């Protein structure tokens, strides 16, 4: 179990007068074994924040700490990468020329021989509820939902402490979205992961997250526990966001 802390994180694109502050002094903590949802509209900087946390974008200021230590320090080759990421588009996040097994194995560290690697791939596929026989297949044989499970398995292969999930269901249909969300929630509990769940879909964020942070123009305008933030939003933008969620009064059985 690990805690991810962002302190005064700033990411700037461009130079001089054309510079754009995509992330502007963000303080955010993902507590041990918790899921923090990050919502905001496109261009609010939420994806840039996620990319900075895994080192894909260099921050221009602030700190990214994992259990109090610099999360982005140089790591030796073969050293474990404790922060992993699952991307939005499962059609772009898997190499079309690499088998499922190779893609998952790439993230593994220290696993010795070929047999033990294969066993580990099978274990991970089983963990994300896919047939281990898929290891020899290419991504083109799989549906979007299955691909996204592979992407989750690849992230888990590195045995991470923290996972950044960037819009992982927005490319999926409603009927497969639920299965992936259930899986992510269950794995998070089972493995004690800390999860930063980035999404524009408030209903989805509300369902998975213990706490929610609302982002706008590179800043976090409000954060708090899911119950508190949804019941008593204090920031006007959070209120607008809540009001904009399309609602419809379908009649459902009261769950027992």
């Amino acid at each position: 179990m690990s805690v991810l802390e962002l302190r005064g994180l700033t990411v700037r694109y461009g130079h001089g007068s054309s510079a754009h502050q995509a992330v502007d002094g963000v303080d955010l903590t993902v507590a041990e074994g918790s899921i923090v949802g990050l919502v905001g509209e496109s261009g609010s900087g939420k994806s840039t924040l996620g990319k900075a946390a895994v080192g894909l974008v260099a921050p221009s200021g602030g700190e990214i700490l994992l259990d109090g230590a610099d999360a982005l320090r140089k790591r030796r080759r073969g050293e474990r990468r404790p922060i992993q990421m699952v991307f939005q588009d499962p059609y772009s996040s898997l190499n079309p020329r690499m088998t499922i097994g190779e893609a998952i194995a790439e993230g593994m560290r220290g696993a010795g021989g070929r047999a033990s690697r294969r066993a580990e791939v099978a274990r991970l596929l089983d963990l994300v509820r896919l047939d281990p026989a898929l290891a020899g297949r290419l991504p083109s044989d799989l549906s979007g939902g299955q691909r996204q499970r592979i992407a989750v398995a690849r992230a888990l292969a590195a045995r991470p402490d923290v996972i950044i999930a960037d819009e992982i269901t927005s490319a999926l249909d409603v009927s497969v979205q639920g299965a992936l969300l259930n899986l992510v929630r269950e794995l998070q509990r089972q493995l004690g992961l800390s999860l930063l769940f980035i999404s524009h879909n408030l209903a989805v964020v509300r369902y998975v997250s213990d706490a929610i942070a609302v982002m706008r123009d590179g800043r976090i305008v409000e954060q708090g526990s899911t119950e508190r933030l949804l019941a008593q939003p204090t920031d006007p933008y959070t209120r607008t966001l809540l009001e904009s969620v399309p609602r419809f009064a379908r009649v459902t059985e009261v769950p027992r």
Partner: protein
Amino acid sequence: MSATNLATPVVITPSRGRGRGLLRTLLGTPLGIAAVTSVAIVLLLALLAPVIWGDAADAYHTDALRQGPSAEHLAGTDSLGRDILLRVLVATRLSVGLALGATAIAVTLGLLLGTLPAVAGRRVGRFVAAAIDVAVAFPALLLAIFFAVIFGVGEVGTMVALGVAGGPWFARLTLTLSATVASRDFVAAARVNGVSRGRILLRHVLPNIGEPLAINATLGAALNLLAFAGLSFLGIGVQAPSYDWGRLLNEGLNGIYVNPWAAIAPGVAIVLAGLAFNLTGELAAQVIGRRTREKAPREPLPGPDDAPALPVIEHGGGDDERETLLDVRDLWVRFPSGGRWVAPVRGIDLRLHAGESVGVVGESGSGKSLTALAIAQLLQEPAAVAARTLRFDGHDLRDSSSRQTRAALADSLAMIFQDPMSSLNPAMRVGPQLAEVATAHHGASRRGALAQAVQQLSAVRIPDPERRARQYPHEFSGGMRQRAMIGIGLMGTPRLLIADEPTTALDVTVQRQVLELLSAVRAEADSALLLISHDIAVVAGMCERVVVMYAGVVVEDLPVAELLAGPRHPYTRALLAALPDMETPRERPLATIPGRPPAPAELTGGCPFAARCAVASDRCREQEPPLATLADTGAGHRVACWHPQAGAVGAADVKTETEAPR
């Protein structure tokens, strides 16, 4: 966990060897056969000709100097009495070999240079990229002549010169292609995992740029063949006693008045070999780029192509007395795929009254967008559209070629697409794009049309419309662009607005504004709306009636009130149950629909939802249910199901995911 209690059944479509498919497609057309055979012949000649005729081609016939064609020497002889045809055949090896050698050098050099920026650091990368750009600007042949002087006149020197001269071009290509691949998420994922730059290049980038590189290398070989012949002809390339086609051409030209065939034979060889490589490269590019169109299969088209048109219905069915605006019956859309017809839309019935708003919901691949495109007559070959009735506003769209019908469509049907950036012209100011509609359809003057456009922008609630009309689409935000798109749609007097996922690319706050605008302007203009969306909540908020599509058919067609109270089809019910909203209990797992929709080619004849349905029976798996009203539903509610459900949607409507114990 064993394979039997997998939550999701894994469906695997058989994968086909890509390489074999490529060769088969190449050999599938007469042109392809010609190209592949001619390259094979050229390569065979290059291998065998010197072995078979090498000595004969060097034999002097002192009794037959500088002779024209004869039975003994088909293309005549040269000044030493050597057989020209045999010399042309034998020269294949040197000509082709040198061209291929130069290409190999160019490709190797190009790969090394072009991938250097990816492997080396950022600064070295920028420098190399700039150097490549400068080198590309020099004409390759000029560079080759320059290098030939440096490396020395002769075959090897010229080969190296041509190779080095071609290098920058391949480097530029490699650079561009790898930049595209490097921006994809799988490379980002590898970087997160700490995979080294070299390994990313070898495992992730190169395999994904191999095909275009190979094609360009083939085309490059054809060019090098010509270039080499040219240099040898000029005396820079191959030196005597060696000979290639260029040198033979040079020698033949000296005696062209005595024996024209001495020049024609090597010339023909150069053209043929060049063509062979060029054609093969072009064809491979077409096949890989999927630019070749699938041929129409021989089997008969499924659907109502020869069926007679149905009688016209003037006023809406059931208790609705409004005029029928759009009447679609038994609409099919078919595509050729792998030598067969597949039908992503299989017999859709859809009717809209004047001023009515109808939503079409369904998952990706359900055929909802194709249905909209087919109605708007926007589908092109190889798609084959057919319907028993396709009437809009009194016009039979089955005969859409008539000018009258097209004019009516242009005037009274407007379409709004998901991505306003790709439906607006980026090189044209927004105002003129709206004005264009008025000038093209209503014969308005330019000034009048522009005034109308500004008025329209203000009608779709764009602030400061005069200034905005002078701006380009990229200066608009996503929501603004979609407003402008709606504005274009409403420039005419549309009786029907078809909106295909109009707010999917927008944020929730902007989505709400755009939807409100769409509602308002629609009400003002009294146009009907066909709203296509994957989001059932959006449709429920905007429409009077909802049509639910699944695997190319309508499975339920019902008023929104009944959708909310409790739909009858298990798929509709499962969709509602699976949709998380702001009230979904967080402590329980989300309801899901196991499996995935069948692809058009996988349909077996039964109900397409049977495999994922909680109440499916044997009958469902064998017989596809028709779309019909039920005994206890009104005429406005149709369901295609053998076991329609009733009551509020609940947990029983989904095969709940069973969590395996661990």
